[in-house]
């Protein structure tokens, strides 16, 4: 038992904390989220140059060959901003999808480019807003003889605006398949959604013709690929939410010391204290369940159920931490340029992203306590 980070992880943590403090000023983050695309190109370039894209990708394919724990340490830092750039979708999830589902050619062609930030890929799976799972993929993968034709709308694509490639889920009689679609293909159009969906875009596919080589893996293997990639990706996403919670906690504690009402710091009021206690409970539950899950995963222990648990708890935790922070910050915390607003938006969107807590709790139970048929 040892809850310390390794020396290397501690150095990584500190260097990212420095970067976040120096470069990712709260007002810069807030502006990004207000600009409707939730995206800072300069910061994304810096992340690419620093080797923070494709961290879990093996070194021979352009990545850092980092463990899930290494990535989690980094993403706890990125989440604290949150860093307004698609570092998770394009830097973790998409590379893992290629690693798990791609041919050797696809890996060699795409992964180094993803690690450099040249290919910015994101997963486009659910057609509609509710639910997550293979059954939510309705778009048809129509055979056109020499390839496929895609038609339909992916309404909610995380980081759909900065992306230049979509990993699209589509359905054929074999099941769900994943297709790599470049954004500049004829028939692809992207609409920014803005407001609470600042980091989400609607991506429309109209008779988009794709060659067979664009398929990731075999027909019908798409959901298995997603599941395999998510086993590593979800804990990393959870760590970014933990970092967000910690940042909110730290700044809100400071606020209870500085903000004077009725002649004293508001942190002296027990009702304000109560909000902070609940906030910390959600934060620490998310933190320790996330990190224990990562430890299980990397120790070769059964981890599937706990990965789902971590996703449920971290998503719920982030959402609740933001809500408790709102109770403390009151009016100022709802100004669109307030640091809390970026977290507000991220907590709402990431609650849905890759499955909501209700979905993951059910999957947790199914993994740990399967129902006998």
């Amino acid at each position: 038992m040892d809850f310390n980070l390794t020396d290397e992880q501690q150095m990584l943590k500190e260097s990212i904390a420095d970067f976040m403090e120096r470069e990712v000023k709260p007002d810069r983050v807030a502006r990004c989220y207000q600009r409707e695309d939730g995206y800072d190109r300069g910061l994304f370039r810096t992340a690419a140059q620093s080797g923070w894209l494709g961290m879990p990708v093996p070194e021979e394919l352009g990545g850092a060959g980092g463990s899930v724990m290494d990535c989690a340490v980094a993403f706890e830092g990125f989440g604290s901003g949150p860093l307004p750039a698609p570092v998770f979708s394009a830097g973790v999830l998409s590379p893992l999808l290629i690693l798990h589902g791609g041919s050797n050619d696809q890996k060699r062609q795409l992964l180094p480019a993803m690690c450099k930030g040249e290919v910015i890929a994101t997963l486009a799976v659910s057609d509609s807003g509710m639910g997550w799972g293979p059954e939510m993929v309705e778009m048809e993968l129509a055979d056109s003889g020499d390839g496929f034709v895609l038609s339909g709308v992916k309404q909610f694509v995380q980081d759909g605006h900065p992306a230049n490639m979509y990993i699209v889920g589509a359905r054929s009689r074999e099941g769900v398949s994943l297709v790599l679609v470049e954004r500049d293909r004829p028939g692809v159009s992207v609409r920014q959604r803005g407001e609470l969906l600042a980091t989400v875009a609607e991506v429309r596919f109209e008779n988009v013709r794709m060659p067979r080589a664009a398929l990731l893996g075999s027909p019908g293997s798409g959901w298995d690929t997603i599941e395999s990639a998510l086993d590593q990706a979800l804990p990393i996403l959870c760590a970014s939410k933990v970092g967000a919670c910690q940042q909110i906690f730290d700044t809100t504690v400071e606020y209870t010391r500085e903000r004077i009402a009725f002649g004293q710091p508001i942190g002296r009021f027990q009702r304000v204290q109560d909000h902070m206690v609940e906030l910390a409970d959600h934060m620490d539950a998310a933190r320790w369940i996330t990190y224990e899950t990562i430890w299980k995963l990397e120790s070769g222990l059964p981890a599937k159920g706990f990965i789902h648990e971590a996703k449920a708890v971290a998503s719920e935790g982030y959402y609740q931490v933001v809500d408790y922070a709102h109770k403390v910050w009151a009016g100022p915390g709802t100004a669109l340029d307030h640091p809390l607003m970026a977290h507000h938006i991220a907590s709402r969107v990431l609650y849905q992203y890759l499955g909501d807590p209700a979905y993951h709790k059910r999957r947790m139970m199914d993994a740990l306590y399967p129902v006998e048929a």
Partner: protein
Amino acid sequence: MDFALDEVSPELKPFQHEMRAWVKDAMRGSEHLRWSANWSTRENDEEYTFRRGLAEKLGAKGWLFPTLLPEYGGAGLTAEYQAVIDAELSEYGLALDHIFYTLARIVVPCILYHGTEDQKREFLPPMTRGLISVWQVLTEPQSGSDVANVKTTAIRQGDEYVVNGQKIMVGHKLPPDWIWLLVCTDPGRPRHENLGWLYMPANLPGITIQHLPMLMGIKNAVFFDDVRVPAKYLVGGENNGWEVSHTHMELEHGGGGSVTGDPAVERLFEYCQQTKRAGKPPIADPHVRDILAEALIESHAVRLMNQRNYWHRLNRDPHPYGGAQLRYYQRTVRLRNAQRVQQILGYDALVPNYDVHEFADFEYLLRAGPGQLHGGGTLDTDRLIVARRMGLGRATKEKAAVTI
């Protein structure tokens, strides 16, 4: 990060094997008493005898308080060894913290940090060897959460303190051998500067113990009528009791942590898998599964906060707000779990089952949820402590006391 309890460094391997074999041997024939060496207010004779016997066996090896020096009844081992002992015991649902029927776990560190050398050598070994049962006796009718508001007086007369007053809601069904008593040593002095702690035999003339039947079992009122206590039993000095309280409270308020799981939720899952309702196990019911998912997640969070605090304590780096946080969270979880049990079991949740230890008896959970919200201070004092430790509205953060 490494959460493993059973993975130890190569130099600890032989000790781990020794301990594993030792615990297995000590539990032979008593496996059905899994959990029963834990804290209890509804004990039966078999449990009680087993528990005291196990404590004596551990104590004889110096393993009840393994990091203490041998002259204090310990084994002079490092914290890593204590972690091994706790981890092996946790396989049987046991923990050093509550291994036998006493609050020595709290009293020993108080004497260790605040007692004189003579007191340590005299008072510690009977506790650390598991030979005696100790009650902590703090609460008074007018002072529950406001624990410093002590009216029980201990006034020095020559070589003795004369104790008068009443304590309430303390102890359990069987009488103590010794008492750890919070008293007012000078009623004329200001609050917090008028307290003292007596560590004294429970059989001194003038002490009367009266059972109080309560929702979660037997507690007691203790009356002190001109009890003459030799002055050598005062620990930490006259009017210095509040200092001693910091050590006491940190442990009582969860700062000790633990590496043992929650038997209640474990057993709830077993029940839902093994019983049948309308031909199907409850765990096949989607509604029941949703309730179980919440119980499972929260019990994991409690277990991890416990493990975190344990690790911090053993590293002598107490978590800033983790002790009171754990206590607050754990007790709110138990309250919710009590209702969850009833949501799943229905009327069956209201039927006591004395064949299982109370920690795993569903009816007891329904009692303990609301019944144990207050022990050692209310939820509100927990939150107050958390707030001070976080430094809310304060220039400085209150520090947690070191407890090992």
